[in-house]
């Protein structure tokens, strides 16, 4: 057995989250036009400002679509997406005013428990509140009452629109306007649910907030939207997880996340993304086209993105921070893994506007099989950003010789006092390294996973404890069969 066989074997393990749940779904017909938008808005019983915003977004998107202005700059390849062939709303049928979990479809609860996510508060680890999004809607949010004691609002986006329309109106689109890009416009037009979190002044959110996204229905796109606002001096840590069934067709996931941190506020946003990546030949899998952005609006605020991306056929994602407040801090820690025929074009943008703003970018790309991994990062220092600092480190690890790693850093400096540091490296998992660890008694799989965990350490240590363990397991599973 050669080294590349061992790596190959380790990387080709089956996707374990690929089951399909049989539920009665309320689906609207395929296709997209103004009536679709109105229908979604009506189903959600939305106030007028929402419908207006959606329609503006739709018209903007439609003009881009007509002009064939779908973005093509990313280092990814896929057949054209048929936007009329997608169902834009699909939700498990449920009673309109569920009071408790007992009223959630047991099949849906069962699906979450198969994924290792218990929605029953008594059975949950006490430190994590979960919002469960199934296809187009949120089916349950745990620990709402406990959070409310501290004034923290954590609920589905739909509920926020009903109960806190003032907050939604104030912040929706304030970080990612609907006109931001093609997929952000599409999301704004059709998004059906997502999570909403609001942490009031001076409150340190007492538990981790998390959303678990599950795509289940066929031919359905998932378009969720997350909005997190942390007021002065507040703190929130938010986790996001995602999976989808194995299907032969590609499915579109186009989400938007907006974060807002006021003076001295901190937001830590962690993602473990494990959408179905497609099979070994590259059939099926999720197209993950996501716009995530945070705004450090206040002085001394901090937004930190940590992501571990192992899934999706295609990932197109650049969690970014706009550093407006003086002394604000933006961080991006990322591990992106591509195996088989997966493609990832991911990175970040750090836009420095305030004085003495500081950003750190640690991006680790792992490519195996025929995977193509691209880091694309932009650091922009605006005129007023005196004393801005950025540190960027991009490391690529190649497993086998049919994969690729690409790095595209864009740097724009308009203030001479800026200090920028950039480091990059590319390495291969060597047969000598694997042999060394095996000589000490570790199996080839354990050896590879140890080398990869070592490579990702700077990112894993930023993840909340439970997630770090989860992420390590996920990486070794995603790589199964790719070690040689």
């Amino acid at each position: 057995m050669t080294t590349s066989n061992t790596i190959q074997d380790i990387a080709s393990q089956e996707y374990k989250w690929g089951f399909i749940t049989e539920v009665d779904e309320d689906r609207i017909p395929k296709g997209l036009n103004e009536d679709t938008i109105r229908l979604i808005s009506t189903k959600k019983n939305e106030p007028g400002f929402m419908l207006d915003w959606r329609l503006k977004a739709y018209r903007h998107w439609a003009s881009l679509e007509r002009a064939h202005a779908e973005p093509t700059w990313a280092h990814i390849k896929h057949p054209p997406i048929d936007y009329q062939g997608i169902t834009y709303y699909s939700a498990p049928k449920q009673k309109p005013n569920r009071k408790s979990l007992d009223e959630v479809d047991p099949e849906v609860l069962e699906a979450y428990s198969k994924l290792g996510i218990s929605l029953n508060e008594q059975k949950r680890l006490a430190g994590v509140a979960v919002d469960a999004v199934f296809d187009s809607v949120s089916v349950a949010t745990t620990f709402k009452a406990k959070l409310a004691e501290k004034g923290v609002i954590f609920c589905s986006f739909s509920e926020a629109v009903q109960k806190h329309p003032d907050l939604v109106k104030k912040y929706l689109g304030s970080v990612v306007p609907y006109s931001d890009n093609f997929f952000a416009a599409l999301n704004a037009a059709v998004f059906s649910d997502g999570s909403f979190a609001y942490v009031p002044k001076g409150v340190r959110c007492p538990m981790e907030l998390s959303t678990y996204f599950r795509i289940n229905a066929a031919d359905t796109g998932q378009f969720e939207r997350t909005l997190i606002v942390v007021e002065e001096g507040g703190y929130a840590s938010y986790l996001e997880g995602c999976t989808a069934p194995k299907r032969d067709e590609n499915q579109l996931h186009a989400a938007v996340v907006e974060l807002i941190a006021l003076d001295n506020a901190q937001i830590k946003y962690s993602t473990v993304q494990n959408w179905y990546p497609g099979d070994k030949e590259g059939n099926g899998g999720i197209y993950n086209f996501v716009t995530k952005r945070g705004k450090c609006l206040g002085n001394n605020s901090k937004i930190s993105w940590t992501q571990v991306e192992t899934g999706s056929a295609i990932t197109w994602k650049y969690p970014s921070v706009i550093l407006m407040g003086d002394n604000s801090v933006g961080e991006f820690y990322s591990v992106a893994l591509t195996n088989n025929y997966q493609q990832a074009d991911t990175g970040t943008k750090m836009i420095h506007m305030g004085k003495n703003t500081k950003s750190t970018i640690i991006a680790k790309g792992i490519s195996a099989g025929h995977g193509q991994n691209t880091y694309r990062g932009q650091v922009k220092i605006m005129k007023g950003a005196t004393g801005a600092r950025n540190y960027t480190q991009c490391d690529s690890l190649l497993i086998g010789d049919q994969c690729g790693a690409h790095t595209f850093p864009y740097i724009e400096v308009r203030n001479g006092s800026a200090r920028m540091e950039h480091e990059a490296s590319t390495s291969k998992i060597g047969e000598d390294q694997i042999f060394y660890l095996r000589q000490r008694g570790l199996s080839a799989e354990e050896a590879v996973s140890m080398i990869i965990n070592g490579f990702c350490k700077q990112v894993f240590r930023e993840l909340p404890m439970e997630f770090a363990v989860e992420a390590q397991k996920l990486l070794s599973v995603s790589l199964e069969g790719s070690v040689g």
Partner: protein
Amino acid sequence: MNMLEIRNLHARIDNQEILKGIDLAIPAGEVHAIMGPNGSGKSTLAHVLARRESYEVAEGQVLFQGKDLLAMKPEEAACEGLFMAFQYPVEVAGISNAYFLRAALNAQRKYRGEDPLDAIDFLPILKAKMELLEMDERFQGRSVNEGFSGGEKKRNEIVQMAVLEPRLAVLDETDSGLDIDALKIVARGVNAMRSPDRSIVLITHYQRLLDYIVPDYVHVLANGRIIRSGGPELALELENKGYGWIAPALAGAQ
């Protein structure tokens, strides 16, 4: 019983025959030194014993504690008690020495049907072995071999051996790169491990190491074959005369 029995071993790398018929028996409890010119196949022999897959065995048989060593994967050989100290130890970024060594020890314990050790049980063991090798405690937390000096890497190999307590240790030029004090420390560590149920193979170029670790036998490997075996005095003779007198063809190869 012999710890290791090698019979007519032929091995190739990239279709080039490097080992051309090795016969060697090492009884339990003995220390054997293998010397020989550069490129003669000493490290190749060590790697074949440790079951490195890129080294192809063309012919021959190897019994390790009576079991067919050539049928084992590297990790099986390791778990059966074979340890190789590398001539060029490998770096593993981001993984601490302590974490790595505990994982290795637990893999071997699992193979033997023993319970894993948690960090609380393990750290005192590691600490004791590091003290024996006079290695600073901070090396526990440093990434495996990353940024270690040449001598530190070699010493770290012996720490690993001391923790893993193998039945057969093959030390490939562990002495090269060590300063004089370090050589004594390493020799003390190796001597502390001599026992009736453990055998040690020392691959070396220099008599100096054998002053501190006195072998039971010395073998000379040249051009893929063992061309002479003898007692510790053979090494002294080599030190004085070089290899030319046993194999005139090698006169220029030392």
